[in-house]
């Protein structure tokens, strides 16, 4: 009946993947959604050569959509290359979530991706020595 809260969304919400802490993370980034106070913190461990997402974990509180989407996001990106993550567009994220969302709920679904990408960019700014990407 309720397309927004389909089984796979509720499942990710109730049994989040990659949830918790990551003590040996290369970077941790946290943001909130000023609209509703949803908060998300993502920790990422990169591969030794810094080209892949070796592991990740999220932690936060907020609505079903933001938390389930974060779980789905990390399930998707862990093991991927950094380049793949950089190329991962909001539109693809919404397809991953796979339920119809109104404009404000889109922000919830994209919060995780925003936190991940911003965290990655900040890390790159600090680590690509002298070579500041755009």
């Amino acid at each position, binding site marked *: 009946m309720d397309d927004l809260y389909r089984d796979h969304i509720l499942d990710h919400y109730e049994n989040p993947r990659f949830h918790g802490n990551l003590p040996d993370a290369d970077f941790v980034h946290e943001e909130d959604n000023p609209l*509703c106070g949803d908060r998300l913190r993502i920790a990422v461990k990169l591969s030794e050569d810094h080209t892949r997402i070796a592991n990740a974990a999220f932690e936060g509180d907020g609505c079903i959509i933001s938390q389930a989407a974060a779980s789905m996001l990390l399930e998707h990106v862990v093991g991927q290359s950094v380049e793949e993550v950089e190329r991962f567009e909001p539109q693809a994220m919404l397809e991953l979530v796979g339920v119809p969302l109104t404009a404000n709920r889109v922000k919830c679904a994209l919060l995780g991706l925003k936190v991940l990408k911003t965290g990655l960019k900040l890390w790159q700014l600090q680590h690509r020595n002298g070579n500041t990407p755009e």
Partner: protein
Amino acid sequence: MKASPACSLDVHRLRVDFPIFATRDGRPVVFLDSAASSQKPRQVLEAMNAIYTSAYANVHRGVYQLSEAATAAYEAAREKVARFINAPAADTIVFTRNATESLNLIAYAYARTNLREGDEIVLTELEHHANFVPWTVLAKERGVKLKFIPITEQGYLNLDALDELLTSRVKLVSFAHVSNVLGVINDAHAIVQRAKAIGAVTVVDASQSVPHMPVDVQALGCDFLVFSGHKMLGPTGIGVLYGRRDLLEAMPPFLTGGDMIRYVGFDEVRWNDVPFKFEAGTPAFVEAVGLGAAVDYLTALGMQAVREHERQITAYALERLSEVSGVRIFGPLDAEHRGGVVTFTLERVHPHDLASLLDRDGIAIRAGHHCAQPLHQRLGVNATARASFYVYNPLSDVDALVTSLERAKAALRIKR
């Protein structure tokens, strides 16, 4: 389900005046977010259209008929607003964009001129950001200290704390008449009197009271009072600042430009009289006329009847919601002391999800921190759900809300 008790307003009859309840493709509109902004009756839209289609020209400066007609309509709206809150004269009414701008005007033009390092401002823990952020900016800029009247566990202001808070350093006391989250109707008269006793200037944020109950600035005795038109059946883009005449006269202007000056030369500028001194540039005069029509509409209903209707529907909502398992209600449980605002959470459900689920049933509630993050910190929650009522909500809207809440629980597989 209980039968809805009788109302003091003929809600079903007056709903006909609000086109939005008819135009949403036959889907029911259970609009429970009037505390954020209210719907508009056709009388308000017609008043504005009438200006645009038959008496439109810029105000104040034209000597031809269209401009004279527009000016007369604008100033008549000022008179109506003054009468509505029993202001002593129309020229104590300054038109702004919204309550937020009114409060900023006080912070810029009054407080920055009159407060000094070491002075103190008393607010409360339940303020809307509009009556919080302008003061934090001032505090940082000027070394002024902010202090807060705490709230009790039941969601009332703890006025016992006033004795300690109201030191001789306190120069300004600013507080919400009615909380947009807890719904609590604060004893504005008592706070104003206590503040005046120590010589502090008083600011009442009446954004949630003027639309919903009789408010009399002279009886309150406050120095400033602010509210927004869009929350009281009026259009967007128009707000009100009431100020004591002598204070307004002594204040420097805030925004400057055309209309607010008496004389401008290369070396000298002289300000216009109050209230024009505070209305720089072309004002939102059509919106003011719309607000005037809203005031007429509310006056015809009778603000006592409006309040009584809201008391009834609020009491009914408090009763019905407390029967839903998992619901936690914030603020006083006694509708006598509560405006038409009921904020709550549902266990295990984020307010955002709740609002989305209710929206499926055509029920509009608000979810989030309602621009009162400090209060939410104080309450220990990130976000809440809020249902708020106005003249057009029949008691059956509460029934629809409760039914939909139960459906939401079912959809989220919440057992009881």
